[in-house]
C-alpha cells in the first residue's frame, strides 16, 4: 500500500509537469490549429535560464524571470516565423516548428555543456513526512505549481477580456475579427503563454535531478497527454498529463515484477500504449471535440 501511494505521488508529480507542457500545446493548437514542436526547446531554454539565474537571484526569482523571458521568446518566434505563414497548410507550419525546435536547442545546448546542470531548486530529493509517508518535496511543489499556473490560466480564459477573445478567435476567426479582436495578437499571446508554461515546466523537470542535453525528450510526453485529453481541451490536457505521469510511474514500479516479459524500461513507452488504447476507444480524446461534419 505504501508503495502504491508513493508511486502514485511520483506519478502525479511528474504528471503535473507533463500537464503544464500539454496545456501549452493545447493553447497554441486552439489558436492556430498547429501543434508546435518547438515546445521541448522552449522548455529546455527555460530550464537552462533558471540554472544560470538561480544562483544570483534565487530559484523562485529565476523561475519568474525565465517564464517571462521564454514567453517573450515565444512571442518573437511567432512573430518572425509563424505569422508570415498564416494561411499556409498547417503541415508546413508544423515542420517549421520542428526546425525552430532544433535551432533553439543547438543554442541552448551550448549553455548546458556535456554534464548535468543543477537548476538550483531548494528541494533536491529531500522528503517530508505526510501521514507517515515520506513524500518528496519536489512532487508537492510540482503539483502546487500546476494548480497555480493552470488555475490562473482558467481564470484568464473565463473572466478576462483577452482570454475570452482568445477563445472566440479559436472558435471562429472571421467572427472574432468583426468584433474587433485582433486574431494575430491572440495567436501571439498563445505562443507567449505556451512559452511561459514550458519554462516553468522546465525548471521543475530539473528539480531534484538537474537537466542535461537530452532532457527535452521529456516534453514529448506531453504529446500522448494532449491526444489522450483531446487536442482542443485545456482541462483534458491536464487530465491527460496526470494520466501519463501515473501510468508511467506505475509501470516503472511494478512492470518488472508483474510483467517481466515486457522487458526493461517499458515505463518509457507506456504513455504511448495508453495513447493507443484511448484512441481505439475515443478517437477524439477523452475531452476533445467530436468532429461533426454537417452537410
Amino acid at each position: 500500500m505504501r508503495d502504491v501511494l508513493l508511486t502514485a505521488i511520483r506519478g502525479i508529480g511528474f504528471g503535473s509537469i507533463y500537464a503544464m507542457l500539454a496545456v501549452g500545446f493545447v493553447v497554441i493548437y486552439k489558436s492556430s490549429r498547429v501543434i508546435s514542436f518547438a515546445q521541448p526547446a522552449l522548455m529546455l531554454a527555460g530550464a537552462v535560464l533558471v540554472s544560470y539565474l538561480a544562483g544570483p537571484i534565487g530559484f523562485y526569482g529565476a523561475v519568474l524571470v525565465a517564464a517571462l523571458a521564454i514567453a517573450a521568446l515565444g512571442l518573437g518566434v511567432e512573430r518572425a516565423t509563424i505569422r508570415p505563414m498564416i494561411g499556409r497548410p498547417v503541415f508546413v507550419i508544423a515542420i517549421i516548428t520542428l526546425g525552430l525546435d532544433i535551432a533553439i536547442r543547438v543554442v541552448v545546448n551550448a549553455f548546458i555543456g556535456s554534464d548535468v546542470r543543477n537548476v538550483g531548486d531548494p528541494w533536491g530529493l529531500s522528503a517530508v513526512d505526510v501521514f507517515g509517508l515520506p513524500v518528496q518535496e519536489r512532487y508537492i511543489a510540482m503539483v502546487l505549481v500546476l494548480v497555480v499556473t493552470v488555475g490562473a490560466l482558467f481564470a484568464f480564459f473565463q473572466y478576462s477580456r483577452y482570454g475570452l477573445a482568445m477563445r472566440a478567435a479559436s472558435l471562429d476567426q472571421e467572427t472574432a475579427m468583426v468584433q474587433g479582436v485582433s486574431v494575430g495578437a491572440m495567436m501571439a499571446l498563445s505562443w507567449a503563454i505556451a512559452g511561459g508554461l514550458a519554462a516553468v515546466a522546465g525548471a521543475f523537470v530539473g528539480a531534484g535531478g538537474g537537466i542535461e542535453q537530452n532532457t527535452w525528450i521529456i516534453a514529448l510526453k506531453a504529446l500522448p497527454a494532449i491526444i489522450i485529453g483531446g487536442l482542443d481541451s485545456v482541462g483534458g490536457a491536464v487530465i491527460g498529463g496526470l494520466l501519463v505521469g501515473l501510468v508511467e510511474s506505475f509501470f516503472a514500479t511494478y512492470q518488472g515484477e508483474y510483467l517481466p516479459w515486457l522487458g526493461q524500461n517499458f515505463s518509457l513507452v507506456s504513455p504511448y500504449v495508453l495513447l493507443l488504447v484511448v484512441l481505439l476507444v475515443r478517437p477524439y480524446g477523452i475531452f476533445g471535440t467530436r468532429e461533426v461534419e454537417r452537410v
Partner: protein
Amino acid sequence: MLAVNNLEVVYDDVVLVLRGVSLQVPEGQVVGLLGANGAGKTTLLRAVSGLLDIHHGAVTRGQVTLDGDRIDHLDPQQIVARGISQVLEGRRVFGEFSVEENLRVGAHTRPKDRAANLERVYDLFPRLLERRAQAAGYLSGGEQQMLAMGRALMSNPRYLLLDEPSLGLAPQLVATIRDLITLINSQGTTVLLVEQNASMALSVAGHGYVMETGKVVMDKPAAELLDDDDIKEFYLGLGAEGSERSFRNVKHYRRRKRWLS
C-alpha cells in the same frame, strides 16, 4: 458619412467581383442594398469592414472612406474601433459560449462602456436577458439573429452593417427584426442593410441601391424603388400586370435591355 467610391475588388488576383461600385451611407439613415446571389453585396461589406484579406481579396481601385478618411487599408479591429460594426451573414454566434459571453466578446474594443452597452442591448432584446446564461447554440434562429445584432451593438457603433438578417427566418420574425432595425436606427445608429428580401429592406430603408454582377444598377429613394416596375417584377415578385408570370424567361432579356448598356 460612410462612402464607397468607384470600388473595384478582385479575389485571388483573378476574379473581378466589384467593378466600380459607388455607394453612400449618410449618417442617421437606413440604406438598403439589394441584389441576387453573387451580385457582390457581401464582398462590398467585406471591403468596408476590412475582411477582404482573409478571403484572399483585395481592393484594386477606388476607396472606402469614413468622414473623408480612407479606411480600406485598415485592419478589421481598427475599423471596429472607428465605429463600424458588421453582423455577418448567417449570424455566426459563438455556439458554445453563453449569450452573455457572446455579448462580452462584442464589447472587446469598448471594455469601459461594457456595462452600459449591455444594458442597452438587454433593453432592445429582452429575450436575450432571459437567456443570458444559455449556450448561444441552443437559441432559435431569430434569437441568434438578435444576439448577433446585440453583439455588434456592444462596440457602440456609429454604423451597423447587417448582412441578410432575414435569412432563414419566418415572416413574423422578419417583421420583428425589421422593427428592431428601425428602433436601433432611431437611437442614432446608421444602418446599411444588405438583403435579398427586397420588400423587407425597402420597408425600412430610406434609400436603396440595387446591385447586379458587381455593379450598382439602380440607386433611388426606397419609395421610388418600391414603385419601380422592374423592382416589382424581379425583386418583389409582382408581375407588371399584377399577375405572376414565369419571370425566369423574361428576367434575362429585360435586364440586358434596360440596365446594362
